[in-house]
C-alpha cells in the first residue's frame, strides 16, 4: 500500500501525560512522527495536537482509532494534504556581514516573502511561513550562498477546508447525550 503524509488532529482534555499516551501508540508501530505541534484550541480547556506522519492509509486509520480510544481524548481524525490548509513557520539566523557582502536583502524578501524579526551588527533573523517545501527552499538557498547560523522550523498547523467543524458537532452531540442521561 502506498505511503503518504497524513495529518492527524487530536482534541483532548488538558490533562498531564496525554502526549505520552499518544506517542506510545506511534512507538508500538515503529512510526516516526514527522512534526508535532500542541496548543490550546479555540475551545477553553481543550487542547489540540497536530501530528504529521508518513505511512499508509490502513495504518493511519488504526493509529487514529487507538488514539481516539484513550479516555481523555475527545476526538482524533486524519486528513491528507488536499483536505487541508496547512502551514509551518521557520526562523533563519544569518550573519549580518555575510548578507551585506552578498548584496541585496530586498531581493530575498521579495522572492520569499520573508519578514525580518531582528537585525543587529552581528546577526539577522528572518521568518518565513509556508509549506515545508517553501521553507526548505529558502534554507537551501541561504545555506549555499551565505550560510545559516541557526535554523528552526515549527510543526505543522492545519485547518480543514470543509465547512464542518467536527469537534463542535461532537461537543453538541455530547451535550445532548449528557442531558438525556
Amino acid at each position, binding site marked *: 500500500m502506498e505511503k503518504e503524509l497524513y495529518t492527524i488532529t487530536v482534541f*483532548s*482534555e488538558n490533562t*498531564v*501525560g496525554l502526549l*505520552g*499516551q499518544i506517542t*506510545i501508540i506511534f512507538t*508500538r508501530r515503529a512510526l516516526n512522527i514527522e512534526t508535532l505541534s500542541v496548543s490550546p484550541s479555540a475551545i477553553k480547556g481543550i487542547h489540540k495536537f497536530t501530528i504529521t506522519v508518513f505511512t499508509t492509509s490502513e495504518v493511519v*486509520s*488504526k493509529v487514529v*482509532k*487507538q488514539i*481516539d*480510544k484513550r*479516555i*481523555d*481524548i*475527545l476526538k482524533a481524525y486524519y486528513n491528507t494534504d488536499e483536505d487541508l490548509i496547512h502551514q509551518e513557520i521557520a526562523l533563519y539566523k544569518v550573519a549580518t556581514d555575510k548578507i551585506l557582502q552578498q548584496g541585496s536583502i530586498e531581493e530575498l524578501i521579495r522572492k520569499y516573502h520573508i519578514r525580518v524579526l531582528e537585525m543587529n551588527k552581528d546577526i539577522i533573523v528572518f521568518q518565513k511561513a509556508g509549506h515545508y517545501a517553501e521553507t526548505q527552499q529558502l534554507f537551501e538557498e541561504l545555506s549555499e550562498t551565505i550560510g545559516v547560523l541557526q535554523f528552526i522550523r515549527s510543526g505543522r498547523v492545519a485547518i480543514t477546508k470543509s465547512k464542518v467543524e467536527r469537534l463542535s458537532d461532537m*461537543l453538541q452531540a*455530547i451535550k445532548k*447525550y*449528557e442531558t438525556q*442521561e
Partner: protein
Amino acid sequence: MKITGSKAIIESLIQEGVDTIFGYPGGAIMPTFDALYDYDDQVKHILTRHEQGATHAAQGYARVSGKVGVCLVTSGPAATNAITGIADAMLDSTPLVVITGQVGAALLGTDAFQEIDVVGITQPITKWAYQIRRAEDIAWAMARAFYIARNGRPGPVVLDLAKNAQFQEVDFEYKPCTFIRSYIPVPKPNPSQIELAAQLINSAKKPYALVGQGVVLSGAEKELMEFLEKADIPAAWTLLGASAMSTDYPLNKGFLGMHGNVSPNMKTNECDVLIAIGMRFDDRVTGDLNTYAKQAKIIHLDIDPAELNKNVRADAPVLGSAKQTLPAITQLLKPAKHTEWIESFDVYDKKENDIVVRREVYPATGELTMGEIIHKISEATHNKAVVVTDVGQNQMMAARYSNFSQTRSLVTSGGLGTMGFGIPAAIGAKIGAPERTVLMYSGDGGFQMTIQELGTILQEQIGVKMIILNNHFLGMVRQWQEMFFEERYSFTKMKNPDFITIAKGYGIEGYEVSKREDLDNAIADMLKDDKPYLLVANVEMKGMVFPMIPAGGSVTDILLGDEGDKNDNSEPEVILEESILNA
C-alpha cells in the same frame, strides 16, 4: 466533616460496593492500610504473597463475579510486580482498579526511595492511569476509576496515590461518576449497520457465528441463544468466549483457534457469512489472515471501535454492546433452518474424535494423559465447576476437555498468556464465587511461578482444588521443540520438588496419582469437601496438544498428530485428506 485521604479511599471503595480487596502493605501505602484496619468488617482484605498474585487474584475475582477487582499495593517494586496482572487484565478486558502507593508529592521526580513512574509505566497497559497528589482529588478519581474500569469494554485502571494525599484531611463527599465527555463507553448501534447485518444473514446459506468474551462481558448469553436459534446458526467460541454457551447446547460447535476443534476452524473457510460477536480476531484464532475466511462476508459486532477492521475487514461492522446489537439484529432475522450446513460439521468432529479425542480421553494403556484427567474431573463436578488454568498445555487441554454448563466458568490468561496466573486467579475466583467448586489446572512449570500463593490459601483457607498436570517439562515449549526445533529440548526439562510435601508445609492436603486405576478415587477424595487440595497427576512426559494449527498457518492447515503408537516419534502429519475437505 473532614477525614483523612486514607479514610476517603476506603469510604470510596465502600461507596462503589467493594467488599473484598487483594493487596500487600508497604511504606508508601501504610496510611491507607492503617485506615483499612478499622474497616475490617466492611472490606475484607486478602493478603497475597506477592503483588503479582494480588493482581491475578483480583482478575479471577472479577472474571467470575463480573465485579471490579481491586488491588492495594505500595510504590516502587510493588507497583512493578503488579504490572503483569495489569497487562493481563488489559489484554483480556478485565475490570480492575489497582491502587499503588507513591512517595509524597514533594519527593516526586527526585528518585526517592521506592519511587517509580507508575503512571508512565502503566499508561500503555491500562484504560486509564492517574496520579492522585492531593486528598481533594480522591473522591473524583476513585469514582472515575470505577466508572472507566467497569463500563464499555472493561479494563484495568491504575491510581497512583501519593503519600501526602493519604495523610491530608479533606471534606469527603462521594459522587459516583456517570459520564465522561471524552468517553462514550457504549456506543449507540447504527440502524443501517444492523439492517445490513440482518440482510447478510437472511440471505446466507451457510452462516456461522464466532462467540467471544464480549458476549459474557455484556451479559448477552440469552440474547446470543435467541439470535442463533432464530436463524439456526452454528457457533464456535474463542478461548475467552468459553462457557458463554453450555457445552451441550446443540448449536455450540466447539473451540476455535490454534488448539481448537477441527470443525470450527475448517468451517471458518467454508461459511458464506461469518458473524464475529465480541471477539477480536486474535492471531491464535485466525492464523494466517491472508487465507482467513476470504470466501465469507464478515459481520463484526464489537463495542470497541478500534477493534473493527483492525485485523479482518468487516463488510458489516456493527459497533455497540452485544446486549443491544444482538437482539436488534435478531428482530430483523427471518426464521431459517440450516440443517444440512450444521450437519456438515459432523464429518470433521468424527475425524477429530477418532484420531485425537479418543486417544487423549479414553486411553486404555500407557501413562495418564492430561485430557483423561480433565475429562474425569469435569464429569465428577457435573460440569458445574469454575475452571481456572495456568498457561500452556494444561490450559489448552482444560479448554478442550472441560464441559461447561454455566457462563463465566473458564478463567484463563488468554491475551497475555501469563504463566503463574493459575494459583492466584483461582484464589480470586473462589472468593468471587464461593458457592462454586473452583478447579485450578496447572503445569509443573507455571505452578512454581506463583507457588508462594499457597501461603494465601493457607491463611484464608481458600477451598481451591489444584491439579498439577506434571510432565516434568515445560510442556508446550517442549511440544514446539519436538515439532519445529528438531527435538532439541533446550532448557525445558524440569527437576521438580515434591509438590505434596510443599503443600503439606502449607497445611494443604494432597495426593500424587500416576496410575489409571487410582484416578477415580483420587478425584473423589479431592472433591470430598470444600477444603484446599492439591492433586499431582504424573502424566505422560511427551504428551502433545492436538489438533494444532502451526503459528502463522491457515485455519485449515490442521495437524492431528500421528494415529499410531504414542511413543512413535514420527512426524505429525496433516490428516485431513482432500476427500474429507471436499465432503
